[in-house]
C-alpha cells in the first residue's frame, strides 16, 4: 500500500511538473484601449527562414533543425494564441511595436536608451518602435504599456489571411 501510495504521488508530481511546462503562460497586451489576453506558446513557433509553423519537438540544435529540413541558422519566433487550446488561432510578433501615445518625448527617451528608434506610424498619435521580431517585441510592448501617455502598446502582429 505504501509503495503504491508513493508511486502514485510520485507519478502525479512528475505528471504535474510536465503539465506545468506544457501549459502556455498567459500574455497580456493593450489594444484599442482594452487589455487583451493571449497564451504564449513556448512549444510551437514559426521558423522565419521558411515561414512554416514548427511543430514539437521545438528544434534548438543545428542537427535537429537539419532533421526537420530547416536551415541551421533559422530563427524561431514564439507565437501567441488567442485561446488556451493548443490549436487555437495565433498571432506572430513580427517585429516592431505599435504605440498610441500622447507623450512622444517619453517614447523617444525610452527607445534611445535601448538603442531603438520611435518613428511616426503615419496616423496622428501612433508611433512605431523598431524592436526585433519575437520576444523583444513582446517584452517591449509590455514595458511600453506602463510609460506615461501610452494608451495602447501592441506588438505588430503578423496575422494569417485568407482570400474569400
Amino acid at each position: 500500500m505504501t509503495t503504491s501510495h508513493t508511486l502514485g504521488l510520485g507519478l502525479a508530481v512528475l505528471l504535474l511538473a510536465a503539465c506545468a511546462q506544457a501549459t502556455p503562460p498567459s500574455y497580456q497586451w493593450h489594444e484599442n484601449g482594452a487589455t487583451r489576453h493571449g497564451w504564449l506558446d513556448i512549444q510551437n513557433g514559426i521558423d522565419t527562414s521558411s515561414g512554416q509553423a514548427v511543430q514539437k519537438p521545438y528544434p534548438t540544435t543545428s542537427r535537429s533543425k537539419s532533421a526537420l529540413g530547416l536551415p541551421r541558422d533559422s530563427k524561431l519566433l514564439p507565437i501567441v494564441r488567442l485561446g488556451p487550446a493548443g490549436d487555437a488561432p495565433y498571432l506572430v510578433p513580427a517585429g516592431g511595436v505599435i504605440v498610441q501615445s500622447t507623450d512622444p518625448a517619453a517614447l523617444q527617451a525610452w527607445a534611445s536608451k535601448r538603442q531603438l528608434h520611435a518613428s511616426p506610424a503615419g496616423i496622428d498619435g501612433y508611433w512605431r518602435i523598431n524592436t526585433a521580431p519575437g520576444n523583444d517585441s513582446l517584452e517591449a510592448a509590455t514595458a511600453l504599456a506602463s510609460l506615461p501617455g501610452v494608451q495602447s502598446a501592441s506588438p505588430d502582429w503578423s496575422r494569417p489571411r485568407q482570400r474569400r
Partner: protein
Amino acid sequence: MNIRPISCVLTTLFLAACGGGGGGGGSNAPVSIDTNTNAYKAVPVVVTSNSANCDSTPPPAAVAQLGEGYSGQQWHLQAASLALENTWLGGNTGQGVVVSVVDDGVELNHEDLAANVLAGQSRNIVDNGKGTLDPSPTTRDNDHGTAVAGLIAAAANGKGMLGIAPNARLVAHNLLAANGSSDLQDAAAMLHGNAVVSVVNNSWGNLDGTGELYPDAGSLWRQSVINGATQARCGRGIVYFVAAGNGGEATSASSDERSNYDYLNNHPMMMTVGSINENGSASSFTEPGSNVLIAAEGGTNISSTRLLTTALSQTGNLGNSNQYRNNFAGTSAATPLVSGTAALMLRANPALSWRDIRWILASTARTDLETPKLPAAIGNGNFTYRTGFGRLDSNAAVAMARTFPGLPPLKKCETTQTSSLVIPDNDAEVSDRLSVSNCSINTIEYVELTVSIQNAVSSSDMNVTLDSPAGRNSILTTRHTCHGEPGWMPSARRCSVPMNPFTFGSVRHLGENFGTGSWTLRISDTIRTRAPNSMETVSEPVTTLRNWSITVWGH
C-alpha cells in the same frame, strides 16, 4: 484503497490540462514572415483637402456595351442580373473614380486592365521582390487579385470582358501576397493613395471555416479605417467593402461560421458583402451575420454558375495566354460587384459620403429568395442574415445616387455597464438591459456591442443576441462547432477564443428610430456534448458577464 483513485484523478487532470494547452500544432497554417522587410515604413497620413478624389471636375461621359470578347458569358451582367448596359450607355462607366484592390497583387499590364491602371499609385506592400510601385504577382498562387480587379474595372476595349465600372481606375496593394500581414501593412493598405482612391475592395479576411472568433483588430488598422472614412475625400470618406466570408456552410471542413466572428467585418465603417447565386438565393457558402449589408452575385459551388473574369496570365482557362477564367466564385467575387457599383454611384454624384453609399445600397436592394425575412426599417423592408437588406440593384443605386441630398452628420453614443450576470451552463437564456441615455441620435446606422465574459471554457456554445428598443434583434453568435483550418484538421474541436472582450457589429438596425427604451442583451450557454451526435454531455463552469457596452452610430 483511496490512493489509486487519487493518482488516477491527478493523471486524468494532467491529461485534460495538457490536452488543452500542449500544442498539437497540426492545424497551423503556414505564415510567411520576412523579418527584414515586413514593416511597411511609409504609412501615409490622411489627405484632407485638395485631393483628386473630391475636388476634381467629373470627366466627360463614356459609354460601354456588352458584346466584346467573352462578355456574353458574364451572366452577372445580363438582363436577368445587374443589367447595367443602360447605365453605361447613359454615359456613366465609373470614369474618373479610383478603386483600390487590396489583395494578393494585380497583373497591372493585363490586356483588359492596363488601360485603367492609375500609374504610380499602386504599392508593393509586402515586398514581392519587385519595385515599390509594382504589386504584380510573382507566383501563380497570387492569382486572386487579378480576378477581383477584372470584375470591378475590366476595360471596354473590345477584348476579354467588362467590369462593372469599365472606365473606373484601378490601384493595387498586395497585402495578401505573403499569407500574413502586420498591423502597419494593413493600415497602409487602407490608407495609401487616399488623395486619389475613393473605394477600397477587400475580398479577404481572417481564416474562414474554423468557427473561431478573431478579436484581434490591430489598433493601427482600426484607426486607419476610421480616419479614411471620416477624413479622406474632403471628409466624405473612403468607401470600404469587405467580403462576408465563405465559411457559412456546415461541412466536415467548415463550420456554419458567421461573419460576426471576424473583426474586419465588425468594424463600423466597413460594409460587409454576402453572395447570392444566379437565381437570387443565398450562396450556400456565404456567411450569415448581423453585419451583412447586401449581397451580390458570387456564384455557387457548381462550376457553371461561377463568374467570368480576368485571370493572372497563364493561370486561367480562357484566352490565348489563359488570361481569363470562368470559374471565380465566393464572397470575393460578390464584393467587387458592389465596389464597382459604388464607383458608378460616385461618378453619378461625387458629393456622396461613404455613409450615403451604404444608405442608398440598402434602400435600393431588391428582395431576394433568402428566408426567413426579418422586418427592416429601410429599403424593401426585409433583412436576412445571409443577404442583409437584399440583392444588389446597381441601376437603382446609381439612379438614387444622382439626387441623394446626403445624410446629416454622423454622431456616436456609447454606454458601458458593469454586470455580474451569471450565465449557467444549462441552455437557459439570461438577459441584461442597458439604456443609452443623453443621446441625440434619431436614426440608427450601425451598432457595436462589446461583451466581456469571464471564465468561459468555450465561446462556441454561446448564443448572443442584442434586441433594440424597437424590438428588432441582432443575432451575433450562435452555437456552432469549431474546426481546424480547412484541409488540416477536419475533426470537430472546441472553440477556445474567449469573448473577453469581443466586439460585434450590426447593420441590422440601419434606418431604425433610436427610440427611448432599453437595449437587451440575451445570452445562453448551451449544454455541450462530448462529440457531435453524442449523448454524453460535458460539464463546464458557470460563467459571468463582467461588463458590456453599446456604441450606436447614427444621425
